[in-house]
């Protein structure tokens, strides 16, 4: 507790000030040293030696620092400061006066036996970047328990210490807190170091209430620099093809370094051997070491002055790589040539260079002509005129492989980065000639990540230099990224006529590239300001577009100008006009239209075309105003009206308003000049409107109308002579109007032999059907035909009048009120002329075809003669000597008068129509059919004949409706059934519509090609007896029994016979039909007979035997028909279907007769 009080007293006495004031400051050496700190309560017991002794050094080891506690003795008036290390001890004694005494080590050793408080093993150094001073304090012995708070206090001084009034340090020092790194190790920092300045520093240690103080220390940071250890050890190739180990250092260029390299044969034994101290950052090594197990380490130290050695670098093994590339990576620009070297060590044996081949990207072998054998084990390859590397995925380089000639390659490769550095720099000087803005884009460069770009330039005093090499004094220009990889740099102020040589420097870890330099003279890239005060007008009387402007500011060079002008409207079409005469500030331009508003802009550029066009000036507009007097007066015409009350003629003049091209540009009023036959003249004005009426009292009266604007009256004017006498003169003989189309009519006229001179003509026309006004037009006298363009309605009546105008007056008009249509009729006949030959030709062809078919039918008829025994109508007919077809059919009294023959009985598919005739002819035919049918039943006519008749009738129906299908192209063997019709039926042909609901469901086969074009409803009211007779032949159970499509018009045959039956004429292959009578529509597509008038004399068993087959093969049939076909009782009537012209039909008929 006592010493604490003393300490308090010390503090109160401003111990620090006293200590600083009395202590000699010690230089911090570039090695570790021990620093004492003392407790004030012990200072009184320390004897103060007398005498002043020069400082002496201890011998090595003589002055232990770690295990020797130095003693610092102080009194209130005197102060002993010691600093010692492994080299010497330096102690000084101070008194309250400035007298200082130093002790020799022997004296100190005496003192050392005395007790002291603390000693610190201290090492201070400056970091390699000279930014920071670091002190590491290690407590060598402590009598103080508890946590210590250590502060490093320092002050900056560049004066000699002896000159320092130590009292001046009071309050001028800075404090750095020392962080405790370990239990007894503290680390202090002095940031923002000034390496060449001198610092005074001391330690202040606080242990609870006790504060200890170190002696003052003096340090110049540059003298205790401890660099960072070297980095990036690697092997490289020297210019003399020797391998060297290189490294890099993170030091500033402010001080030079020396290096120490050591090798170790075996890292495990830690037998390092320093080979050499070098000043460069590389050391050539013997090739024999390559591939060995040697390790290399390097350290560095300041070359001049004091300082620490850095730590040793990370060991580098010389045998880490089996293939060594020199260099391993190259960054170069497009078009350049590069070389790589390679040493290939295969299984600790260096491959001979002549056995080395080079490959690019593992895909392309480099020609041997590009190899160079540097020595026995170094191969070199040179690549010429390189193209830019195309990125392949994430690989932005070409991989170069050094391989054995046996095509064996190590996986290591050298990397070749080829970058397109052709960056275009464009510059533009502003109109004030004070600023030049340069822009460049770096899209291609961005491919190589990690590149930094900067624009460098140097300036020639005047113009551009042709020196392409970069001068030493190039500068970096700050550029700003504008987006989309484009940069913008601004030079301001500028030297207008100096050459700025610029290029882009591309920095990358692999190297630095430069774009080709470009030289720009600001005066050559000026973009001037646009001309100002642009004015535009149409000149009066001259009628030219006059554009004037003021030259831009700072336009010290001669300029040429470009004027663009256009009529102001929605879609502007610019015309340009260039003026290169200098000096120029206005221009006259000929323009086509003087009475429109023009919009005008002007821009400029240097007269020699150097630089840029300025922006366009602000737009100037012309004002439409009268340029000249009207070019001519208006055309006019008159209407003569008679006032029966006053008995006078009134003349109304009307004229067309002048277009702007004639009025130039407006008409303020019209002047009507009158001149009578008595040479009386007077004028009247019309300010508004285009009509004027006056009474016509004179025999002759000449009217002239003048147009007047602000400039004057029209000089060329129309005049119209009016004469009572001339109005009866008729010189137009004829007038004809030919309509061309609805918008054009041609008028032609003929004149009688010339008696009068015709000045002009006037044509009037008007629509007589509508109350629209009369229209007119002037024509020259020397024509006899004109086109009138108007909207004509050709079906309406128009009146055309042609007035001859004589110098003496208006003659008698010729009028026509109709169109002559010869022309149009002729045009229509053209079509007729074309169609007529075609019709004739078609008729001839048709006739020919009929004749051919007639012959064919005749032949067929005689080849297939029916059996007269079985064919009633054929009885009595002499087939040996036929006369005509008609004769054949007439012979039979029951035959229908109409009956075309079937072409071939085997192939005929026919719908049998039972039609209700709507026409008389049809009825007759139908009745004929009925009569025949009745005879069939009564007299048992052979079915062939009846079916034949029905077929005929069906064909007749087909000819009417076109709905009968015939399978005439098939060679199937299909027979026809008879249709038993109710002779009294009056509703057979009730309906021919609704063709969609037809008999599709009647057909057993799904593949049936027979369509169903007929309406089932047509059977609704019919009591027809229809029987489809199945084939009785027992050997044909598989034959399909198809219900023919039944309609009001007849059957339609299944068309898939080809699939079912083979071709041929065998009667066993015939297909027969069953007809079901009394068919009713039940909402289905099947009809069954109920009230048949004819009972079939058939064996129903046989029938249903086949029907059973029918059922099996028609699972998709309507259930209704299934039910009806399933049970015997459901079928009441069967009508045998007899084949015609076939023996089968005979058998069937006979069989049927036998059964009945």
């Amino acid at each position, binding site marked *: 507790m006592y010493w604490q009080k003393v300490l308090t007293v010390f503090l109160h006495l401003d111990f620090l000030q006293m200590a600083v004031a009395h202590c000699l400051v010690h230089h911090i050496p570039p090695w570790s040293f021990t620093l004492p700190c003392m407790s004030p309560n012990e200072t009184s017991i320390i004897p103060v030696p007398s005498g002043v002794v020069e400082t002496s050094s201890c011998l090595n080891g003589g002055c232990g620092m770690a295990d020797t506690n130095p003693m610092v003795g102080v009194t209130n008036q005197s102060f002993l400061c010691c600093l010692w290390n492994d080299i010497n001890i330096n102690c000084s004694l101070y008194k309250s006066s400035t007298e200082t005494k130093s002790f020799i080590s022997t004296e100190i050793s005496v003192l050392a036996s005395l007790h002291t408080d603390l000693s610190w093993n201290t090492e201070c150094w400056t970091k390699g970047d000279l930014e920071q001073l670091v002190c590491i304090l290690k407590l060598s012995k402590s009598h103080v328990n508890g946590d210590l708070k250590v502060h490093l206090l320092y002050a900056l001084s560049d004066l000699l210490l002896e000159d320092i009034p130590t009292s001046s340090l009071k309050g001028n020092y800075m404090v750095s807190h020392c962080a405790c790194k370990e239990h007894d190790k503290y680390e202090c920092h002095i940031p923002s170091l000034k390496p060449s300045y001198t610092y005074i520093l001391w330690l202040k240690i606080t242990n609870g209430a006790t504060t200890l103080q170190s002696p003052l220390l003096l340090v110049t940071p540059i003298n205790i620099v401890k660099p960072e250890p070297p980095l990036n050890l690697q092997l490289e190739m020297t210019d003399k093809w020797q391998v060297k180990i290189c490294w890099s250092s993170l030091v500033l260029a402010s001080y030079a370094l020396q290096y120490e390299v050591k090798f170790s044969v075996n890292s495990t034994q830690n037998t390092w051997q320093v080979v050499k101290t070098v000043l460069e950052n590389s050391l050539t090594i013997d090739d024999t070491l390559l591939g060995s197990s040697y390790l290399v380490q390097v350290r560095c130290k300041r070359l001049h002055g004091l300082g620490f050695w850095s730590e040793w670098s990370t060991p580098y093994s010389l045998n880490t790589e089996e293939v060594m590339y020199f260099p391993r990576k190259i960054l170069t620009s497009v078009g350049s040539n590069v070389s790589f070297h390679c040493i290939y060590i295969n299984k600790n044996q260096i491959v001979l260079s002549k056995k080395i081949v080079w490959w690019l990207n593992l895909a392309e072998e480099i020609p041997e002509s590009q190899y160079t054998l540097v020595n026995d084990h170094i191969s070199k390859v040179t690549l010429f005129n390189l193209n830019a590397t195309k990125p392949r995925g994430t690989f932005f380089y070409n991989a170069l492989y050094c391989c054995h000639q046996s095509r064996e390659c190590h996986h290591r490769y050298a990397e070749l980065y080829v970058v397109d550095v052709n960056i275009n720099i464009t510059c533009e000087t502003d109109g004030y*000639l*004070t600023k030049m803005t340069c822009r460049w884009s770096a899209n291609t460069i961005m491919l190589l990540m990690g590149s930094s770009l900067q624009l460098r330039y140097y300036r*020639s*005093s*005047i*113009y*551009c*230099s*042709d*020196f392409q090499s970069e001068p030493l004094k190039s500068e970096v220009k700050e550029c700003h990224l504008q987006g989309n990889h484009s940069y913008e740099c601004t030079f*301001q*102020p*500028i*030297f*207008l*006529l*100096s050459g700025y040589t610029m290029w882009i420097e591309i920095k990358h870890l692999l190297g630095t590239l430069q774009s080709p330099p470009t030289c720009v003279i600001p*005066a050559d890239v000026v973009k001037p300001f646009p001309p100002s005060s642009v004015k535009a007008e149409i000149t009066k009387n001259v009628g030219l577009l006059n554009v004037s402007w003021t030259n831009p*500011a*700072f336009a*010290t*060079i001669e300029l040429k100008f470009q004027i663009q002008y256009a009529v102001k409207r929605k879609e502007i079409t610019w015309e340009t006009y260039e003026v290169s005469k200098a000096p120029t500030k206005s221009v006259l331009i000929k323009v086509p239209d003087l009475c429109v508003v023009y919009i005008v802009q002007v821009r400029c550029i240097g007269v020699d075309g150097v630089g840029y066009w300025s922006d366009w000036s602000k737009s100037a507009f012309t004002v439409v105003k009268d340029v000249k007097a009207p070019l001519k007066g208006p055309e006019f015409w008159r209407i003569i009206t008679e006032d029966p009350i006053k008995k006078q003629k009134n003349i109304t003049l009307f004229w067309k308003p002048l277009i702007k091209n004639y009025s130039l540009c407006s008409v303020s009023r019209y002047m009507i000049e009158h001149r009578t036959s008595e040479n009386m003249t007077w004028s009247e004005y019309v300010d508004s409107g285009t009509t004027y009426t006056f009474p016509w009292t004179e025999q002759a009266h000449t009217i002239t109308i003048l147009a007047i604007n602000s400039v004057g009256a029209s000089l060329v004017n129309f005049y119209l002579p009016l004469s009572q006498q001339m109005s009866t003169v008729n010189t137009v003989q004829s007038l004809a109007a030919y309509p061309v189309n609805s918008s054009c009519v041609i008028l032609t006229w003929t004149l009688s032999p010339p008696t009068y001179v015709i000045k002009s003509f006037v044509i009037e026309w008007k629509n007589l059907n509508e109350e629209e006004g009369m229209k007119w037009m002037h024509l020259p006298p020397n024509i006899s035909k004109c086109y009138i363009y108007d909207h004509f309605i050709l079906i309406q009546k128009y009146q055309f009048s042609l007035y001859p105008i004589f110098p003496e007056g208006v003659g008698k008009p010729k009028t026509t009120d109709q169109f002559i249509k010869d022309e149009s009729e002729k045009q229509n006949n053209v079509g007729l002329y074309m169609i007529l030959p075609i019709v004739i030709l078609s008729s001839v062809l048709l006739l020919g075809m009929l004749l051919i078919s007639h012959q064919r039918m005749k032949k067929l008829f005689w080849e297939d003669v029916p059996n007269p025994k079985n064919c009633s109508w054929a009885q009595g007919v002499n087939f040996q000597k036929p006369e005509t077809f008609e004769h054949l059919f007439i012979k039979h009294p029951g035959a229908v008068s109409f009956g075309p023959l079937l072409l071939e009985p085997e192939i005929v598919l026919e719908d049998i129509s039972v039609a209700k005739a709507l026409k008389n002819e049809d009825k007759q035919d139908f009745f004929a059919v009925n009569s025949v049918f009745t005879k069939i039943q009564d007299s048992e006519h052979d079915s062939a004949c009846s079916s034949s008749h029905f077929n005929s009738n069906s064909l007749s129906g087909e000819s009417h409706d076109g709905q009968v299908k015939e399978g005439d192209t098939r060679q199937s063997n299909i027979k026809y059934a008879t249709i038993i019709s109710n002779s009294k039926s009056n509703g057979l042909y009730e309906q021919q519509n609704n063709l969609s609901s037809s008999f599709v469901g009647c057909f057993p086969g799904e593949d049936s090609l027979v369509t169903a074009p007929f309406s089932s409803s047509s059977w609704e009211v019919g009591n027809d007896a229809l029987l489809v007779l199945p084939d009785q032949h027992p050997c044909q159970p598989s034959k399909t029994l198809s219900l023919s499509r039944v309609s009001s018009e007849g059957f339609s045959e299944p068309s898939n016979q080809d699939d079912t039956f083979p071709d041929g004429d065998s009667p066993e292959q015939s297909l027969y039909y069953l007809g079901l009578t009394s068919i009713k529509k039940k909402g289905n597509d099947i009809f069954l007979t109920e009230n048949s008038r004819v009972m079939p004399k058939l064996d129903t068993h046989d029938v249903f035997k086949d029907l059973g087959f029918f059922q099996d093969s028609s699972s998709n049939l309507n259930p209704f028909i299934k039910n009806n076909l399933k049970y015997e009782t459901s079928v009441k009537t069967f009508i045998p279907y007899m084949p015609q012209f076939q023996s089968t039909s005979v058998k069937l008929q006979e069989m049927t007769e036998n059964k009945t």
Partner: protein
Amino acid sequence: MRCPGLPLCGLLWLGLPLLYGRPVKIDKVKADAKNLTRTLIARIQELQLLPVNLKVSGLDFLPGERPLESLEAMDATLQVFQRVLAGLPLDAVPGAQLANDMENLRSLLRLLGAHLGCAPPAAPALGNLTDLLAEAPYSAAAVALDRLHKSLHGITKHLDQLRCC
């Protein structure tokens, strides 16, 4: 006007165009010099200092009162004005731009002299101008710009007739 033939030292000047690689036609140099002179005049007018209508004493070190009859005199005059303008409190951008233009103009005149085989001009002896200019900066600025304006007109006129040094 004195027009020496081709002094020996002028041969050295002949090398100046060669330094710039491509040969520069003397007409282009003249045209550029005239354009630059006009630009300088325009810049002085942009500064909008009132014209000096009085005779101001105490600024005798400023040239421009005598006509410029030689390239050497032109260069010397421009050199003085360069130093004067550097000491005047002009706005940064116009002042620097004026100085740059005058530097360019001097280079052109030297190039012209090299074409004509003239001896390199000697640097005029000038004392410390700072104090002189600081005494009355407005007067110095107004008079300096006024005289420079006149000198530039004189240079323009003389360039048209320039045949020798």
